[in-house]
């Protein structure tokens, strides 16, 4: 795991400024880096998908994101140790003053993912646009990645599954985790949890391209204090939290 290279950051900053300058007119770009790639076009490293969770808007009695995730991806919704869970609602209490927080924790889609480092078969990988996935054609179910993940984000499928969602293949003996709803994203739709959260009116999850300085999420991260969970590990997560 390399520490952040300041020169590289500066370079990336400049390039994105140039990209932003390619606009023909305000709001009209020569090309877009966001949704809707042409069919057959590979995911691009110009984009980095990320989420910003506003914990002040998230409530402990709401689990809509978890419910939507389970439905979209065909999870049972069980919470036993052996049940796959892609999003967990975590309740925090500050013991000193009793302040309570509730927040969804899922795969944080790190820039330097420990799960990818340890995978012996290259099944864990990071797609060009920053989404960390498991290639279950290669996964041998060793579960090293589950040990390596500081966020407890990955689950192992213990039981035979039937009637999977055609867009979300899942199977016994492999490890899985939040995919940022990659199948929806590639169609130009938002992840199921983001959509469900917006539907409740809370709008606690903001989703977008962290590399695009004009995206709503980048603007918000520039103006409001946000944190990465376990930032000390320097994984540079794609999921950020504000109001912690």
């Amino acid at each position: 795991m390399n520490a952040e290279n300041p020169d590289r950051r500066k370079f990336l900053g400049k390039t994105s400024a140039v990209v932003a300058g390619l606009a023909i007119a305000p709001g009209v770009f020569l090309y877009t880096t966001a949704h809707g790639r042409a069919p057959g076009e590979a995911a691009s490293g110009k984009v980095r998908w990320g989420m910003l969770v506003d914990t002040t808007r998230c409530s402990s009695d709401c689990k809509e994101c978890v419910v939507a995730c389970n439905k979209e991806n065909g999870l049972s919704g069980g919470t036993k140790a052996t049940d796959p869970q892609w999003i967990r609602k975590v309740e925090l209490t500050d013991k000193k003053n009793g302040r309570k927080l509730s927040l969804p924790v899922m795969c944080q889609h790190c820039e330097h993912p420990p799960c990818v480092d340890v995978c012996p078969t290259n099944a864990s990988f990071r797609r060009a646009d920053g989404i960390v996935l498991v290639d279950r054609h290669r996964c041998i179910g060793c579960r090293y990645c589950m040990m390596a993940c500081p966020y407890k984000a990955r689950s192992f499928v213990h039981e035979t599954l039937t009637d999977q969602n055609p867009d979300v293949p899942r199977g016994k003996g492999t490890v899985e985790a939040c995919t940022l709803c990659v199948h929806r994203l590639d169609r130009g739709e938002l992840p199921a949890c983001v959509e469900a959260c917006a539907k409740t009116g809370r709008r606690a999850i903001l989703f977008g391209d962290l590399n695009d300085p004009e995206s709503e999420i980048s603007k918000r991260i520039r103006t409001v204090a946000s944190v990465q969970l376990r930032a000390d590990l320097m994984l540079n997560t794609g999921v950020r939290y504000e109001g912690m």
Partner: protein
Amino acid sequence: MKTFLFVLLLAVMPAWAGGSSGPKLDIGKGGQCVEAPEFMRRNHMEILQHQRDETLRKGMRGSKYSLVGCIDCHASSKNNSVLGSNENFCQGCHAYAGVRMDCFECHSSKRKTVAEAGK
């Protein structure tokens, strides 16, 4: 030995392609396939393996080859699946050829529109 097997295969193939022997399959909607049926019989696994890596690892969607596409055309009209009995498209031929396939341990064997309507 290899040449002998190849000649034997050539001798057997036309009979199979002609439909006089081989498994009796419910080909579902059927119609124009993405490649010639003879080509698909021998190479569908290579095509699918190549396509799955491009789609999953690089994110290239919308290829003319896809497992969902196979199922959409070839799922049986009776149970909307490519599995179920030896008349169903995938299962029937694989049972006949004696080749195990792992695809459907993870992938849905049902036609997408039907699988989604059932949720």
